[in-house]
């Protein structure tokens, strides 16, 4: 088998994999337009917009949606400061304590969501806190904070601590060192961490299911709908969510490409200036 043929085979494999990934999502979205009581693209019974209208008039969906957003915002508000603070803390210590602390911080990422959910309600129940979305927030933060921690910790590796040293020597206060020097360096990681936290929280099902009490979030709502009398309005919701995800991803990509182009232009400029200087 020569090189060219192997490359073609690989390309075909990649193409098939993308089809495998994307076609189910397309079928699910397509069923939203099918004028059939049961959600399916087959058999096709004609184009309709009634599932979108049904979705729009579904008040449970709107409460679940609002709950999801509220929970996600609360998770971001807690996970970002916790993750950032613990990354700074872990970064400043070394040796055995560091690896133990690090282990405890990372372990919740691997723990099954059901276990996190159950331990959360049992513990807060002892403190007489009833179940509800506030416990969902706490349960989710317990592992989502680790994502923020890992991202900030990675960013801290490229931080030049001499900058802080210089600032302190020049008479900056502790608050100024934090605000003006450390945090600006960490902002990209903090921003990415906030985005990851938000999406992780929206996606969460396992922790939420055990901690939510009687409140609903979108994932729980979709789940209960599928199990009890599903209509294609769920497909309409799915399609809208996929479109939202896709737009966010495209926006990110466009921004990234623009930044890369700016960076490349700046580098070319610098190279030209250097060459001119040499001459």
């Amino acid at each position, binding site marked *: 088998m020569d090189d060219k043929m*192997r490359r073609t085979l*690989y390309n075909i494999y*990649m193409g098939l*994999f*993308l089809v495998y*990934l994307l076609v*189910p*999502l397309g*079928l*699910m979205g397509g069923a939203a337009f099918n004028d059939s009581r049961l959600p*399916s693209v*087959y058999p096709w019974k004609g184009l309709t917009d009634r599932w979108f209208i049904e979705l729009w008039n579904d008040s449970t969906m709107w409460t679940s949606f609002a709950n999801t957003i509220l929970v996600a915002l609360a998770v971001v508000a807690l996970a970002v*400061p*916790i993750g950032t*603070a*613990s990354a*700074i*803390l872990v970064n*400043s210590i070394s040796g055995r304590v560091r690896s133990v*602390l690090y*282990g*405890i911080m990372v372990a*919740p990422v*691997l*723990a*099954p*969501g*059901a*276990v996190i959910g*159950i*331990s*959360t309600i*049992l*513990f807060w129940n*002892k403190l007489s806190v009833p179940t509800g979305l506030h416990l969902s927030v706490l*349960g989710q*933060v*317990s592992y989502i904070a680790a994502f923020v921690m*890992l991202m900030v910790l990675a960013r801290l590796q490229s931080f030049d*601590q001499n900058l802080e040293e210089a600032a*302190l020597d020049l008479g900056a206060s*502790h608050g100024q*060192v*934090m605000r003006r020097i450390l945090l600006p360096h960490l902002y990209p990681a903090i921003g990415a961490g906030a985005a990851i936290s938000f*999406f992780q929280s929206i*996606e969460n*099902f*396992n922790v939420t*299911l*055990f901690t939510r009490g009687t409140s609903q979030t*979108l*994932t729980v709502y*979709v789940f209960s709908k*599928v199990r009890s009398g599903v209509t294609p309005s*769920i497909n309409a919701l*799915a399609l809208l969510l996929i479109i939202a*995800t896709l737009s966010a*991803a*495209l926006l990110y990509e466009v921004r*990234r490409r623009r930044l890369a182009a700016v960076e490349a232009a700046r580098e070319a400029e610098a190279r030209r200036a250097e060459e001119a200087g040499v001459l």
Partner: protein
Amino acid sequence: MSELLRRYGPTLTGAFVLLTAFWLLMLVILPNVTLFEASFRPYLPVTEVGGPKDFYSFGNYMKFFANSTDTDIFGFNLPVPIHVKIFFGTIYFSTLVTFITFVIAYPLAFYLAKVVTPKSLPTLFLLLFVPMWVSEVLRSFAWWLILAYKGPLNAVLQGVGILDAPVRWISGYRAIIIGLVYTYVLFMVFPIYNAIQSLDTNQIEAAQDLGSPWWRTHWRVILPHAKPGIASGSVIVFMLAAGSLLVPALLGSPTSLWFTQTIQQWMLEAQDWNTGAAYAFLFLILCTCFVSLVMWLFKVQLTDIAK
């Protein structure tokens, strides 16, 4: 620590320590201690908690071994407790899912790391990331639609002539495996991609120049280098698959219970939080053992996996 104090002063350092302590104590350690403690206590009405009936025992754990059913194991008909059977079924099928995702993901990771032109990489990654950001519940729902008895898969397969009669896909563990592989395959691709990417392409070319056939290059050069990535991908996929509740609940049938579903039954249907705690604790132990075993076998650290 003194370094922190010198740089950020007592107020900020105190805030760092407090935030970290809140996280690790109130959200991680104490809840798990409570889980452990509660798992040894009986489930009682509120008025009897702390009364004479409230003592520590293995009662909740013994429920694990109740209700034996005859099961065919290598041709022997043995009575196996129903929950033990579900427990090992979950491990077995999660391992199977992990293996299938590895087989699918390895060529893909290699392609992304070494074959494809770097220019098209961002677009490919974008296409791969979109399904990953779509909620798990929707991804399982998509397969619920596809695998339906009167769904598109049966229609296509019958249309092409592969099947004579429609197949009931959602029965036994079949649909769960299909759903889990679809949902978690990307968690295998990215760690292996990261590992292979750090391999110097010259090493692959050297092997080829010395006459190594493509399969030996993979076996002796690329696979060994990708080992940490394979280990972390396997651990992540296994944990996600075993811990999944959505996929088995949506794509499962009455004959295919997942262990998380038994936990859910104790917690939410029977409202017996103590037995639920015992089951959850057993499950946690299982997962910890498995992860430790894989890390020991592949000689990788927790630090490598968390990347």
